[in-house]
């Protein structure tokens, strides 16, 4: 790897040189170099985005399938059997094995492929060079590799759906011993091998990308673009990359040990195990809690990898569309930094009932609850940014406001779950599902939608259809709350997650109707996402064309590029930056782009 790093040496600082180089290349690009093995950060970001959308579709479809089982446990869907085959559907019902496989792959795909690669992969690639004023990433080649490793990871994961024993089915956290023993379940056989390969490829991809993002943001900002003039998107993407670079390797180490446990007879995570039909295993001396520690040392920062880009984009889009400076810019950076640090200190709050030492647990409670402080700072800053703003309700802005709403609703329940005493009751119930889907799943999804609607004109030089976007927004927002809000009540009543069928429990029979309601809303909401996908692809080719460089009246640098920027982004010189990104409604002017020098009689911001 160090070779690639070293190969491009020297190109980092001489952006002027690079510009001439790129402009002359524009004309003789073949299809393959332009669309497939592209080193242009904009094309790579589109590759990440479209791959992410495909994965989001598949991941969403999986959730529809397992919600069918949960909502309609007595119904038979014979047509599904014809489509999916016997492994997945038997006698018109999703098989238990398939149910667990669907839950597992839904989680893995959504967290890693959609909300990590699809979100920060897309927007880090697209926005970093454009917003800091660079021709491209520090190492475009590594950037390309990052995408190809991601694609390979996705293909391996996809192939695991088609192996005879089925994909991995032990939950996206892949706890040992289900993940460590081939005989533990059908999905623990070759499905788990493919799952591991896929995630390791993904770690490589994320590392290649992350190093690139960090080096680019630090080294390649244009003249005048000091760190405190960066748009908050860039700050958020910067911290996201830092978290990724420091936490993914720990997962990688955990997986190395897991691979040895699976294949080479070690017992890092195994001790005293008896399997029906196999007998007592010789493995002695390991502890499964070690795996959980290693997993969550990544797993918790991972939720911030998912969430921070959404936070950054929300800040930017909100300020642009409220026509107001973002409230508390430095506080926003400070809280991002605090979240970044704290995300590494709280992992064991996922393990309160695992056998974790209660005293150690109590320290984790304290550290966990500290996260509420920066999160609250961010929420109040967003609300005060909206306060008395001259709000334009573009689709991007609506999704941003939706993001804030979901972040608040989902975040508050985090305070409950972060408390180790309450967690004894709530752990592994639907309450947890409701919490993390609202706060990180749907909220980040909303951030992603906001980003797509807002930057689509820059990506493709066309607008997305507004009517479809409004329908998409309202149904998705209502759907998100209608799906996940009732789950809080189910969870408080003690209904556990990851069960195939609740009808045999007297206590949970009362929720049969509610489950059916949730599943119905899931189907409607999923159908609405197809509307978005249609809108996205239709608008790429047929959308209304953008006619001005700066359609939103925004201050940031990406809107100073041509409507369809070529490789190298700016024709001629890269603009110099003279002010921060949030001079909206200042001195009687609606917006003042960052490139405009500070006037003599201008008031201080």
């Amino acid at each position: 790897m160090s070779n690639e790093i070293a190969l491009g040496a020297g190109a980092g600082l001489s952006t002027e040189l690079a510009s001439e180089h790129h402009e002359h290349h524009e004309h003789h690009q073949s299809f393959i170099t332009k669309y497939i093995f592209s080193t242009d950060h904009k094309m790579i970001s589109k590759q990440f985005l479209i791959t992410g959308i495909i994965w989001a579709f598949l991941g969403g479809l999986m959730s529809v399938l397992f919600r069918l089982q949960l909502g309609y446990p007595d119904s038979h869907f014979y047509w599904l059997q014809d489509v999916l085959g016997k492994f997945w559907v038997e006698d018109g019902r999703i098989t238990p094995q398939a149910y667990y496989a669907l839950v597992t792959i839904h989680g893995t795909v959504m967290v890693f492929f959609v909300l990590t690669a699809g979100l920060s992969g897309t927007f880090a690639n697209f926005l970093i060079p454009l917003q800091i004023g660079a021709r491209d990433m520090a190492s475009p080649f590594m950037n390309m590799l990052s995408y190809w490793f991601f694609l390979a990871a996705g293909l391996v994961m996809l192939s695991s759906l088609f192996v005879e024993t089925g994909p991995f089915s032990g939950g996206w956290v892949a706890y040992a011993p289900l993940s460590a023993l081939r005989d533990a379940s059908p999905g623990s056989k070759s499905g788990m091998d493919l799952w591991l390969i896929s995630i390791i490829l993904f770690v490589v991809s994320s590392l290649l990308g992350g190093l690139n993002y960090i080096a680019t943001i630090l080294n390649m900002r244009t003249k005048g673009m000091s760190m405190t003039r960066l748009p908050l998107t860039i700050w958020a993407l910067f911290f996201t990359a830092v978290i990724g670079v420091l936490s993914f390797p720990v997962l990688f180490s955990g997986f190395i040990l897991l691979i040895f446990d699976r294949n080479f007879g070690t017992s890092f995570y195994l001790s005293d195990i008896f399997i029906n039909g196999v007998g007592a295993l010789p493995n002695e001396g390991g502890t499964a809690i070690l795996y959980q520690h290693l997993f969550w040392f990544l797993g918790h920062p991972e939720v911030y990898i998912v969430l921070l880009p959404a936070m950054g984009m929300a800040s930017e889009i909100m300020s642009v569309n409220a026509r107001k400076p973002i409230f508390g810019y430095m506080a926003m950076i400070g809280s991002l930094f605090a979240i970044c640090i704290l995300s590494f200190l709280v992992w064991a709050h996922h393990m309160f009932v695992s056998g974790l030492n209660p005293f150690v647990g109590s320290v984790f409670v304290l550290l966990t609850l500290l996260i509420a402080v920066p999160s609250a700072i961010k929420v109040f800053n967003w609300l005060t940014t909206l306060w008395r703003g001259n709000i334009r309700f573009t689709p991007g802005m609506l999704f941003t406001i939706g993001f804030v709403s979901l972040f608040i609703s989902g975040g508050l329940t985090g305070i409950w779950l972060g408390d180790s005493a309450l967690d004894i009751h709530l752990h592994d119930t639907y309450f947890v599902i409701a919490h993390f889907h609202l706060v990180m799943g749907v909220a980040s999804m909303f951030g992603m939608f906001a980003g797509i609607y807002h930057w689509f004109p820059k990506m493709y030089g066309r607008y997305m259809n507004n009517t479809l976007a409004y329908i998409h927004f309202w149904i998705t927002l209502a759907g998100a709350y209608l799906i996940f809000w009732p789950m809080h009540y189910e969870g408080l009543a003690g209904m556990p997650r990851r069960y195939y069928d609740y009808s045999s429990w007297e206590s949970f029979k009362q929720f049969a109707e509610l489950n059916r309601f949730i599943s119905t809303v899931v189907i409607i909401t999923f159908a609405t996402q197809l509307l978005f996908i249609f809108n996205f692809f239709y608008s790429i080719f047929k959308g209304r064309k953008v006619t001005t460089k700066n359609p939103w009246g925004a201050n940031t640098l990406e809107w100073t590029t041509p409507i369809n920027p070529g490789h190298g982004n700016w024709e001629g010189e890269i603009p110099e930056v003279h002010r921060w990104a949030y001079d909206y409604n200042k001195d009687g002017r609606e917006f003042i782009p960052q490139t405009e020098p500070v006037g003599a009689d201008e008031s201080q911001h």
Partner: protein
Amino acid sequence: MSTTTATATTKWWSGGKSPFNVEYGKIMMWYFLMSDTFTFGALLISYGTTRFATQGWPDPNHVFNSFPGLGSGYPLLFVSLMTFILILSSVTMVLAVQAGQNMNKKGVVINLIFTIIGGLAFLSCQAWEWTHLFHEGAWWGRNPFINADGTQSTTNFTNFFFTITGFHGFHVFSGVVINVIMLIMALNNTFEKKGHYLMIEKAGLYWHFVDLVWVFVFTCFYLV
């Protein structure tokens, strides 16, 4: 790299230049090594955690006490040799980097050759040690050694030993490969044509990191 005579008033963060006064490749190498630090850190911390969770542990002085040609009964002797080999190869790597900074091709080539020899010597030592332990009955999932207090030991002693030293050995191996590539490029005058030997510095960082990791692996497995 053009502002080595920077004064204290330089505004490092104002954009248009590197806040660290280094080119991006070196930044990436540093942060890659940070990332790798967490990989090794996690492995060693897992080892520590398992050791804390286990009743007894073999005494390394009784396990690693052989020297080729001398037989057993020499605790720490062989691993001391390995340690010094790696430290010396690190020294020659620094000298290669310094020669590169002075555009001294001959110095780069000679010191790189010494570094590669050191790396290969270390790998050979490790191969001998692994083979020796294997013949004593140790391997992944097999632990012939007993705890210091004479009781049955868990296989995690050998499991962690082979996994972590193996992972380190893999890093040494890739470091040797990188150094061989650097040597070939130096001999082909690639760096002379480029006008700088910055790549040697990055390879050097990686090589020192391998040495650094050995400091921790050596202490954690052989000493404490």
